[in-house]
């Protein structure tokens, strides 16, 4: 059975991609990078960070590129002034939400949120910043979670569930109070399901989950999910 292809325009460039491809992937495969924070290849799409919003001509609405599939004749704009403005806004809201202090963060210079701010030219935060004092859990032998740096992208939760298959991590509470927890809100050392596989630390876009004593550049491995999946599917 052959899969059909779809022709569409992304930023004026005509591209042809397999049916069912998400706009984010279609763009990436054709050299157009749409910025995103929560999406990661190999994991299910989440649609939460709203950084990858794009415009589709003919609709007044904005669409998250990570979770909107292509269709024939679609004309996608990925980088209008309005989108830039909105992305800046989203990044500022994330920076203002919890205590993000780059200079004392393990992920300084290896941080997707920081990179995003730089790329978009976010030179300051227009909102008064919230100084959170959420729990830091360093009870595990080497994994540490500093929830003050968490942007709730749920990559760690998804990689733990979908790739490692244990679902140690999940969320508690809701809204601004949401927190990533282990098992039924145990300290990490007491988690009976955690396999200490480190995948959560590898995919964390910021410095929220990291490995104690290890240089962050060494820890981060954003292709881990994709890598494992392709190896698994290889017969």
């Amino acid at each position, binding site marked *: 059975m052959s899969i059909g292809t779809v022709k569409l325009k992304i930023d004026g460039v005509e591209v042809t991609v397999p049916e069912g491809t998400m706009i984010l992937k279609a763009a990436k495969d054709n050299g157009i990078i749409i910025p995103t924070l929560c999406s990661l290849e190999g994991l299910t799409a989440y649609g939460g960070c709203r950084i990858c919003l794009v415009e589709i001509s003919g609709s007044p609405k904005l669409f998250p590129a990570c979770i909107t599939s292509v269709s024939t004749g679609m004309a996608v704009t990925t980088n209008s002034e309005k989108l830039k403005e909105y992305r800046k806004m989203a990044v500022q809201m994330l920076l203002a939400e919890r205590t993000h202090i780059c200079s*004392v963060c393990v992920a300084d210079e290896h941080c997707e949120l*920081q990179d995003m701010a*730089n790329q978009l030219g976010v030179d300051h935060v227009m909102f008064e910043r919230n100084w959170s004092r959420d729990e830091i859990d360093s009870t595990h032998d080497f994994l540490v979670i500093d929830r003050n740096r968490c942007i709730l992208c749920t990559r760690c939760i998804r990689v733990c569930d979908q790739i490692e298959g244990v679902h140690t991590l999940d969320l508690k509470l809701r809204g601004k109070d949401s927190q990533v927890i282990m098992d039924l809100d145990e300290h990490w050392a007491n988690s009976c399901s955690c396999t200490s596989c480190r995948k959560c630390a590898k995919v964390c876009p910021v410095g929220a989950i990291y490995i104690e004593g290890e240089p962050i550049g060494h820890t981060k491995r954003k292709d881990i999910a994709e890598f494992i999946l392709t190896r698994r599917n290889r017969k």
Partner: protein
Amino acid sequence: MTTTGKVRVATIWLSGCSGCHMSFLDQDERLIDLAQKIQLVYSPIADIKQFPENVDVTLIEGALANEEQLAMLKTARARSKILISLGDCAVTGNVTALRNAWHRSDQEVLERAYLDKSDLNPQRPDQVPKLLVKARPLHEAVKVDFFIPGCPPSADLINYVLTELLAGRTPNMEGRSKYG
């Protein structure tokens, strides 16, 4: 601009580590070019007691942490045409603002430093200016025209912003600045 034809520039050092000023000096030989065009009218690296009137550009390093600094900042704002936040402390609060997560951090930070952690003769300091409840980035108190983030911002970035401003252009920070 004054009769000398030079742009009057001031720099201020609030609650920061002076690293941003070091970075300013790191412009090295470019400082010589800069000196042709600007006149330093107030700075921690120059011996001038009063913040002068009619300043064209003021660069401020450090977060806003106490009442004396607040007064200084307001004066600078009133007497400067362009006010620039220099470095992360001025832009985000940065390390200075680490105390903010504590409840009534203005009290607690002094207690921690001068009472709890003192080796001998613990006493609450009464000579220092009154701390603000929270250490804040400058733009939460006054209008700031430009931001140069970074801890510290690179000499290149400082030079770029100044050069652009001196040429009468608006600096574009997209992809240039390093947040944090």
